[in-house]
């Protein structure tokens, strides 16, 4: 395209024709990425389903070791954070930069609360000998020879989810700094919306993890 002389908005990347195309492309790319995240966790859910089908009693026994109360609190925390991130996007759309910043900060705080609770859950388990993998697992409170398998699945699923939370916090700090620099507004809020989408995904995955791991009867 030879029309380089035309004035571009600052956020418009060179290879796009206009802002709409850029926004559409970003949104589509994000959705494709989300599909791929779902498949990624899908592999873990498959492993979960297979082992639960093979050893149903293992899952009912081992799940009692998980703290349902804290799991439920964490679920509420994440749902709350999904709400605030949605409000952040709304603020950006309405050009309320202050609201955008505040909502981002609340979301980040909630994410940290989630991690904190997760930290206490993990450290309690590690303390009593529930480690991932047969080699380190020493807990004897569950009368099942494959108890370590349940906790391996528990640790890998919640662990990868926690890594997603940490990545999400990083992304939101990045968005927050850019918001501080006044880069977003009703004209351009693509990154805010993309991070929001990502955060909803992380939330939804937890909403599956919580009942599947904590609430087995």
């Amino acid at each position, binding site marked *: *395209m*030879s*029309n380089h002389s035309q004035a571009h908005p600052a956020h418009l*990347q*060179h*290879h796009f*024709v206009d802002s709409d*195309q850029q926004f*559409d*492309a970003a949104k*589509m*790319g994000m959705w*494709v*990425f989300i*599909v*791929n*995240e779902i*498949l*990624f*966790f*899908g*592999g*873990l859910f*498959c*492993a979960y389903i*297979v*082992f639960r089908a093979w050893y149903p009693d293992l899952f009912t026994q081992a799940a009692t070791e998980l703290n349902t109360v804290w799991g439920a609190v964490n679920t509420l925390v994440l749902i709350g954070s999904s709400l605030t991130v949605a409000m952040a996007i709304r603020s950006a759309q309405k050009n309320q930069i202050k609201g955008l910043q505040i909502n981002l900060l609340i979301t980040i705080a909630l994410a940290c609360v989630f991690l904190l609770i997760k930290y206490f859950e993990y450290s309690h388990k590690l303390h009593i000998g529930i*480690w*991932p*993998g*047969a*080699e*380190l697992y020493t807990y004897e409170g569950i009368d099942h*020879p*494959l108890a*370590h*398998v349940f906790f*391996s*699945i528990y640790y*890998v699923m919640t662990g990868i989810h926690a890594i997603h939370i940490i990545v999400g916090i990083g992304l939101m700090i990045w968005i927050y700094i850019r918001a501080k620099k006044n880069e977003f507004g009703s004209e351009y809020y693509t990154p805010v919306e993309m991070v929001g989408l990502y955060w909803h995904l992380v939330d939804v995955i937890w909403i599956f993890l919580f009942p599947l791991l904590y609430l087995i009867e």
Partner: protein
Amino acid sequence: MATAEVSNKKTLKVQRFKPSDNPSNTYLTDEKGVWAWMTTVDHKKIGIMYLVAVAIFFAVGGALALLLRTELMTPAKTFIEADTYNQLFTLHGAIMVFFVLVPSIPAALGNFIMPMQLGAKDVAFPKLNLASFYIYVAGAIFTFIALAQHGLDTGWTFYTPYSTESSSSVIWVTMGVFILGFSSILTGTNFITTIHKMRAPGITWGKLPLNVWALYATSIIQVLATPVLAITVLLLTMERWLGFGIFDPALGGDPVLFQHFFWFYSHPAVYIMIVPGFGIISEVISTFSKKTVFGYWAIALSSLAIAFIGFLVWGHHMFTSGQSAVATTVFSFLTFLVGIPTGIKIFNWIATLYKGSIKMDTPMIYVFIFLFLFSIGGFTGIMLGALSVDIHLHDTYYVVAHFHYVMMGGTLIALLAGLHFWWPKMTGKLYNEKLAKIASVFIFVGFNVTFLPQFVMGAQGMPRRYYNYVDQFTAFHQTSTIGSYLLGVGFLIILYYLMHSLFKGAKSPANPWGSRGLEWQATSPPDFHNFDHTPVVIHGPYDYHQPMEEFQLGLAVDTNGHDSETAKEVVDKEREQWKNYSLG
């Protein structure tokens, strides 16, 4: 200045932009120096970097193959130990699959050509594209760390519990593959978005080049399958590191479950490797027959059909593994279904030749080689899909020969066709046609001498991954080894004349093959932004009955006074048809 009503809503002013045969500015002259290359976000340069990386890995993988074949000259030890042999075939497989075949066509040629075929300046996410390349490099580094340590001796399939017990550096390689997977995922994500959102005015889904359709199908598989590979190798790493008990029977796991996980990715991965090759074949066969592709929609949609059915057949790698009888039956049945769209493609390509104007230049020679070899690969695939026969042939050299006919006779030959086809576009240079034809003879003969005997010895019972073998197979193995040397010579000739072309080759015109493809309407090598105008497309990519001028249209620029009468006529003539088209 001509005007064109592309949809009911928009009217575009178009004019003809004839590509110069002597471009003053190209992507090669625009950003120079090593640092500029390494930090570039230009899809063409990234494509070239991939091509170089893939070529290096291919050379390494090929050298390993020659060592393997040399060892197999005699039934017992020829010159290396059993453990070394096991490492060599593992690395040959892993390098060829993960570092050569998977990225070869999409990431190297696809990156270069696909945005040009869409008339776009770049892929949708150029920085992500560069990141994909470096992620690929990072994955490769991990693999080489493994080599520097204890190597890898598990076979590229990492079957448990051997891989959890092996004393080689399995974790480095699985982490390498894990990282590499993200490169593949990000490229797929990028391509899907690019194809949806970055098409030039006038490129409707029905005018998409078949190469783009093929890459689209490939990208879908990459996005859907690769995450499962990532999680599989992650779990395998955990199994080995901490003893998770998911795949290792000694800890309560199930090795057959690992195979399900592994093949859920690795069978679709076969289509990640071959489907982009189909795209190249369609482009080349149409150009060198100067003829519309026969059955455009059949070829385009069969790629998608393969992509989807390809997800449902992974169990056919496991007929002897102990999976349930019902699963075995269903997987066998579905396997035959995936063969049909592939057959449809072959028939359509042959029908394209009918009444064409066929020129047997090097790319076309490789297409013919492809059609012959890939057909054999396909037929033997049907053989392996048949349950009772597969029980006999599974894990023998018959399987080895089959997948080499598909992966090398298919993907790699298609890659060679594409490389020779687009070489003038990528480098702006012509290569020595005579040497190229000689090399293709070496490749064809060498390939068949190498792999045809493997069908026979496989059917006679020769198992794969064997360091020693019983005497009755000696003649077959020796023939095969000689064939592999011929193949090696063929590739050396190719390397020689391509290097010669790069440094001393004659200058190529913009469109040496007279192709109607949009990428050929840019200069050779292309401008930094591919086109110095926004291309407008009114015809299908294979409409050889339409004059060349009508493929060279672009948005008219006010400051540019070159009004084109031809374009005006074109536009007037096409206007009626255009009403049904909408902008992409």
